[in-house]
């Protein structure tokens, strides 16, 4: 008689669910890499490098870096108090406010740009433009990037505050802090990773922002041209090499930022 006959069958088999999930993940990743690799191998590196040396593209690169950094910082300044209010505040209409703050995420990008354009045609908008001209200007690029970037940063900061217990902050208040001092001395230092992530997300979103920038700030070369605008401008005149070169530059920047965030995030 076989002594193993009655033993329960060992189930070392991989669950079919993992196989299906693994295959789908692999196919998706291959597709993404294939997209980038095909763009990268379309032209020779010399051609791509030459395209990047063009004055307009260098200006767009510099402007993209500056505007993205500025809009990430502004987005963070907005996201910290708004995220805190959404996370810690208890008030009527909170669900509505929460939904309203997602509007820039769900609206088509072109519509965001159009709304900005129309806002600055109103009496209120014209009054602001007497101090800082936004329409078809660099300030407009930053504002268009901020509208979207801040919405994502707010989500991240809200999640960060949700994960931080309110107790230490409350204890700080019993020890003599006002709520503002307690937030400054206890909560914000604990939220530093989240703040870093929020700024990074805002930065990355701003780098790829095209629709609102195009509609609100225009696509004037050597003025309001950022990297996504360059891709569009070069494509529209049939200069595929330059469009690809700039696209690869943006992929490189994105990879650099993602790696930097991982490394810095672990050290924070």
């Amino acid at each position, binding site marked *: 008689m076989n002594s193993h006959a009655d033993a329960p069958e060992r189930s070392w088999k991989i669950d079919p669910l993992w196989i299906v999930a693994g295959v789908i993940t692999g196919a998706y990743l291959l597709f993404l890499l294939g997209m980038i690799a095909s763009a990268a191998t379309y032209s020779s590196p010399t051609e791509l490098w030459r395209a990047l040396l063009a004055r307009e593209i260098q200006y767009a690169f510099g402007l993209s870096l500056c505007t993205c950094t500025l809009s990430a910082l502004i987005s963070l300044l907005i996201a910290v108090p708004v995220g805190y209010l959404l996370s810690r505040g208890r008030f009527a209409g909170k669900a509505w406010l929460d939904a309203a703050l997602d509007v820039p995420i769900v609206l088509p990008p072109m519509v965001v740009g159009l709304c900005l354009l129309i806002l600055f045609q109103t009496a209120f908008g014209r009054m602001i433009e007497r101090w800082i001209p936004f329409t078809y200007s660099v300030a407009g690029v930053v504002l268009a990037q901020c509208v979207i970037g801040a919405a994502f940063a707010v989500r991240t900061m809200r999640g960060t505050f949700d994960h931080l217990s309110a107790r230490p902050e*409350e204890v700080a208040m019993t020890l003599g802090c006002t709520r503002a001092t307690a937030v400054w001395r206890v909560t914000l230092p604990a939220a530093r990773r989240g703040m870093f992530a929020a700024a990074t997300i805002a930065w990355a979103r701003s780098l790829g922002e095209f629709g609102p920038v195009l509609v609100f700030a225009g696509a004037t070369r050597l003025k309001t041209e950022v990297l996504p605008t360059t891709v569009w401008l070069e494509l529209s005149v049939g200069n595929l090499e330059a469009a690809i070169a700039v696209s690869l530059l943006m992929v490189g920047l994105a990879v650099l930022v993602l790696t930097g965030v991982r490394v810095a995030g672990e050290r924070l």
Partner: protein
Amino acid sequence: MIRLENVAWQAGAFGFSDLSFTVPGGCYGVLTGRTGEGKTTLLELICGLRRPLSGRIWVGDREVTGLPPGARGLGYVPQDGALFPTLNVREQIGFALSIRKSPPDGIKRRVEELAAALGVTHLLDRRPDRLSGGERQRVALGRALAASPRVLLLDEPLSALDDDTREQLLGLLQCIHRETAVTVLHVTHHRMEAQRLAGLMLNLEGGRIREGLVGGGGPASEKL
């Protein structure tokens, strides 16, 4: 002294009304009651972290009903200690004094004195994530006691500890109470803990407080 007079509080279906009791100055009060009766809420009302619908609250000889938490002169130790995640033990214990802008020398002296009394001197440079449960509670106690509060509020400070650590901290709490004139209100549902510590037993049930005097932690007169 801690005194509540006709205090009412409500959140949805949960709440209490007309709640009154007094813990005399220097007394060790222990508040017991089933889970969900509102013991933590009661401590938060005394702290000023929640606002009562009506009624009055005294801490020491001062009415504090309308005062912000930081002006009530009390120390609060929540259930898990709730240490500040980014500060080391030295900074945690010195926190209340640094907020009051005490001179650095005075803060240093007080931190060292409390750290020695609580047995955490060797931990002063550690952050909370490198402390054991018992160590965290000792630090939380030190942080609450640093500014010499008149009242100490403890919310199940020993609930998550093993028997040996619990025993050590019970002794420490008795020692603190013996050597300071601090009035304590200690929330627990551990019967042995309550019997060992209580000078006054309070039981919260169905929105009502039942009082009973016990031996042990009666009013203390010495001051550290």
